């Protein structure tokens, strides 16, 4: 059990999945309640050309991912303004364009070998500098979530009346997307472009089965994501399976296990006492 911990690459990989799990798990609860699963997946795919450019230039991946995600978000916002183009269609067009551009770059002669690492993650190749940047971004995401908690809660509860409560739903959406982008940039390092969405959806969907308050749900989701990440790495270490994919599949397995647990929990809940019509 402790043997893998002797290996420095494993220590760094464990630190990476815990960081990814904490940010992804906490953000994921909002992703689920704001219906942003598709957006999360799209943002992840659309930063692919940035990753390839960074790989070609020999720069840290985060440096490539950040501008790509900003370009994608702006392009989606602009495309959605064209009359007759729905938001969904705008996302689809932008994501395919960006991903196609990334593939084009990745298959060019200048591109270094190892594109799979960008698509499927290279959790065992994480460097100390990557970890430091990831830790910084995770602190940023958690601080952002703490600051915005009340407002995100209001806008997600009922968009129609949010404004009368002093909260702009558009601001809440935008702020959440920025935090999500930061979270994706952290997670893409370990889980890769194609698998990253697992950590933003799976743990939160599992935690939702087991809790009905936002804060406990976020804590639970982050814990599930971090533990599933660690379990996935052990699986990968002993079974010789790919790191990112093992983590993603462990997360899905935890979600499947949470379903009967949620059912059991719901059936054990006492009925509410009937409403009292008396008023003081």
């Amino acid at each position, binding site marked *: 059990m402790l043997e893998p911990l002797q290996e420095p690459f494993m220590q760094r990989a464990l630190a990476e999945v815990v960081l990814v799990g904490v940010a992804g798990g906490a953000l994921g609860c909002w992703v689920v*309640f704001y219906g942003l699963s598709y957006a999360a997946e799209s943002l992840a795919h659309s930063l692919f050309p940035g990753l390839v450019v960074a790989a070609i230039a020999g720069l840290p991946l985060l440096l490539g991912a950040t501008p790509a995600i900003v370009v994608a978000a702006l392009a989606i916002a602009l495309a959605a303004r064209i009359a007759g183009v729905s938001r969904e269609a705008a996302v689809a067009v932008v994501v395919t364009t960006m991903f196609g551009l990334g593939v084009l770059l990745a298959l060019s002669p200048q591109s270094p070998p190892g594109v799979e690492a960008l698509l499927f993650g290279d959790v065992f190749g994480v460097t100390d500098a990557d970890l430091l940047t990831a830790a910084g971004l995770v602190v940023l995401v958690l601080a952002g979530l*703490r*600051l915005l*908690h*009340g*407002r995100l*809660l*209001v806008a*997600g*509860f*009922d968009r*129609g*009346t949010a*404004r*009368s*409560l*002093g*909260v702009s739903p558009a601001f809440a959406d935008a702020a959440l997307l920025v935090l999500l982008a930061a979270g994706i940039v952290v997670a893409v390092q370990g889980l890769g472009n194609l698998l990253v969405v697992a950590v933003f959806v799976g743990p939160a969907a599992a935690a*939702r089965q087991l*809790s*009905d*308050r*936002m804060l406990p*749900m976020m804590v639970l989701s982050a814990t599930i994501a971090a533990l599933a990440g660690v379990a996935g790495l052990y699986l990968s270490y002993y079974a010789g399976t790919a790191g990112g994919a093992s983590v993603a599949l462990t997360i899905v397995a935890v979600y499947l296990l949470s379903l009967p647990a949620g059912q059991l929990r719901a059936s054990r809940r006492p009925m*509410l006492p009937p*409403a*009292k*019509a*008396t*008023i*003081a």
Partner: protein
Amino acid sequence: MPAEPLIEAADLSAGYDSTPAISSVGFSLAAGQTLALLGPNGGGKTTLLRAVLGELHLIEGTLRVGAKCGTVPQTERSRLDYPVSALDVATMGTLARLPWWRRPGRAERRAAARALDRVGLGPFAAETFGRLSGGQRQRVLIARALVQDAGVLLLDEPFSGLDRPSAEGLEALIGELAGEGRGVVIATHDLEQARACDLVLCINKRQVACGEPDAVLADVEVLEATYGGAIVEIPGAEGRAILPPHHHHH
């Protein structure tokens, strides 16, 4: 009656852009008064509520709102699977007066708990919002408006989907809150609920009539113009029924 009304609208036209969604609206609501906003679905009731909240484009006329408004939306509009307690929802009413970096703290939660007590839901503060009954959820949303220190309560179809005892309890609560000097606007399509209010404003894209319920609701032509249908007398039954035209929205 105090000299300064809480809401005063004159010849008001408002819309989501430069086309008016409602027009020629004029009414005045004083402290302690309840006003029923009567009209068909899609007739502009919710639009008028949003205009009072200042969320719409004023095209013509004047609208003066002299008190803080608290909205009480239809509870179906909010998410019933949302992970919040009744207390969490009531606490949302405190956000507007906090600076953006501050989260509601102990004082805010105390204020929210008091408001829940006021609407008779103190024992249910810790319960998940989505597990409460329709009437209880409506009360939680009223508590949230009370936490906002709202001088005017805007209720959107508060009685829809409620059983008789819940509706009566809610009606009594609204009466008390008005009695404490608040102005209350209730959007409804229920003639009986409208009859219980101090004023009735009939609206179908434009204002059809406004006045005391006895006068307004006795006029068959007003009701026909409001609902765009035919009014029929049901033998043996009290009051009248409305035969709606085919549903067609513009």
